[in-house]
């Protein structure tokens, strides 16, 4: 963790730096990203609100795990973050998306 290059995550294909001890939500805020999901009904942007895992506003996908709370998941080197509120894993449509993003990986 001494090397800054190691403190990088991948957010929708772009490098996202983080500081040791930050949550993913904090790393996004530090990078000036205040929202990473839109609401189901009105398409409104959402990011951190309660900051402590209560409100579920800050959901995103981390390493293929859908609906993780950005405010509680610690940032870690190489984590792959997908914004936009992906909900289903392993569906026909999202398989296509994944194929484009991660051609080398197979699905479980």
């Amino acid at each position, binding site marked *: *963790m001494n090397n800054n290059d190691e403190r990088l995550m991948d957010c929708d294909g772009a490098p996202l730096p983080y*500081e*040791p*001890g*930050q*949550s*993913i*939500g*904090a*790393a996004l*805020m*530090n990078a000036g990203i*205040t*929202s990473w999901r839109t*609401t*189901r*009904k*009105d398409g*409104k*942007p*959402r*990011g*951190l*609100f*309660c*900051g*402590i*895992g*209560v*409100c*579920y*506003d800050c*959901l995103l996908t*981390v*390493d*293929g*795990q859908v*609906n*993780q*709370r950005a*405010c*509680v*998941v*610690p*940032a*870690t080197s190489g*984590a792959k973050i997908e914004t936009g509120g992906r909900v289903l894993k392993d569906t026909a449509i999202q398989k296509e998306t994944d194929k484009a993003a991660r051609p080398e990986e197979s699905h479980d």
Partner: protein
Amino acid sequence: MTDRVFDIGVIGAGPAGLAAATAAASVGLSVVLIDAGSQPGGQYWRHPDEQQVGETDHAGHHDWTTFTTMRSALHTAMEAGHITYLPDTQLWLIDPVKEATARRTLRLTNSYTAGPEQHIARRPTEVTVDQLILCPGGYDRQLPVPGWDLPGVMAAGGVQALLKGSRTVAGRRAIIAGTGPFLLPVAVGLAEAGAEVVSICEAGAIRNWLPHVAAAAQVPSKGLEGAQYAALMAKHRIPYRSRTIIRAIHGETSVEAVTTCKVDSSGTPIAGTERRYEVDVVGLGWGFTPSLELPVMVGAQTRRDVDGSLVAVVDDQQRSGIPGVYIAGEATGVGGASMAVAEGKLAALTAAADSGRPISPRDVSRLQHKIKRFRGFAVAMHTAHPVPEAWTGWLEPETVVCRCEEVNYGDLCTAHEELQADDARTLKLVARPGMGWCQGRVCGYAIAGIAASLCGREPSEEDLRSQGKRTLASPVALSDLAALNNEIHL
């Protein structure tokens, strides 16, 4: 893990839970301490991940030595095998008791399933305990305001958590609003970290404090805190405006500005007092409200506290009235960390006594005396910082009330006026507030208040309880539930 039965399960490793777990271990009980967080301390003693950054300075923390002392006791007890500590672990269901025992199985899942490996290692999915001490803590109480769903608007506690936990400043220009002494450390924390705080808007009147000085004086450390904050606010030139609220928050895709205004003693806005501030962060907090789903799940009695929140009823030794279940900390009435520590210790002593261990009556009465003093201070604080009675008058028909299900104030008015929804439960079933991801944790207090105001009455315990009941204490993956299908027999 499944074969072992612990004497006591303690839920939550904040001030109350840490105190309860270490006190229980010290009188010889075997303890499992379950916490959703990655390291002990709860929200109050939130600090950066020590595995990543080591010990840091704790300028922003009060009673830090209280914490480190209890943490040392935790580690000692863990090494001795007296406490099994399960961090990153979320309790999602407490099984009903079987027959006449108080023995309960607690259903667990990982708090999160992505991130550093040490945090997402598979935890036990169940533990069984003979007694249960619930120390679920609380979170910021929220009142909806036009524009509060814009990114950049955060719970005051969320702003603080970013600072304390991630050493991250939520923005460059901030305004902090709501009511209560907690607004001060949030504003000061931001300023110390380099943000400009354009104002603290306190809905109450500062002079409300005067009648309660006597109560406050019994807890000297609180007075000192106040003085420290005053000095820091002066240093950072943070204006403190009382009888002031945020009337609206403006922006397209994130916060750009707010409009504040003065209010009268009922909370009704005074025309012509509007001021506009350009900001990129808004911190909102109307005191705290406890997490009540676990007490409600086990069937504990609840009441509406002096501050208007739903809290659990306990006797003067933290017994919930449900055999084998004790409750400590904010869940019994918001009162701060010092009181939570005393309640946690008392709950552990009572649980020990109830299971036949000898305990010192002097320790019990000492703790009871302490709690009474703290409670007096808490009541004074709540009385000085009430949620203004006219707050629902700030809402516009299009103001979002339930952020998850995107239910507007206008939807609730329609449900009441046209569809005869005359309590919070019926409002929820007709218009869906509180039905989404957070299950009413954020909007529940507000919905109860809106239901009451639409009907022209005071919010009732029933209004609050209908919003506080959560049949699952947290979301749980269907695969986790399904995995139990082969293990459980009727």
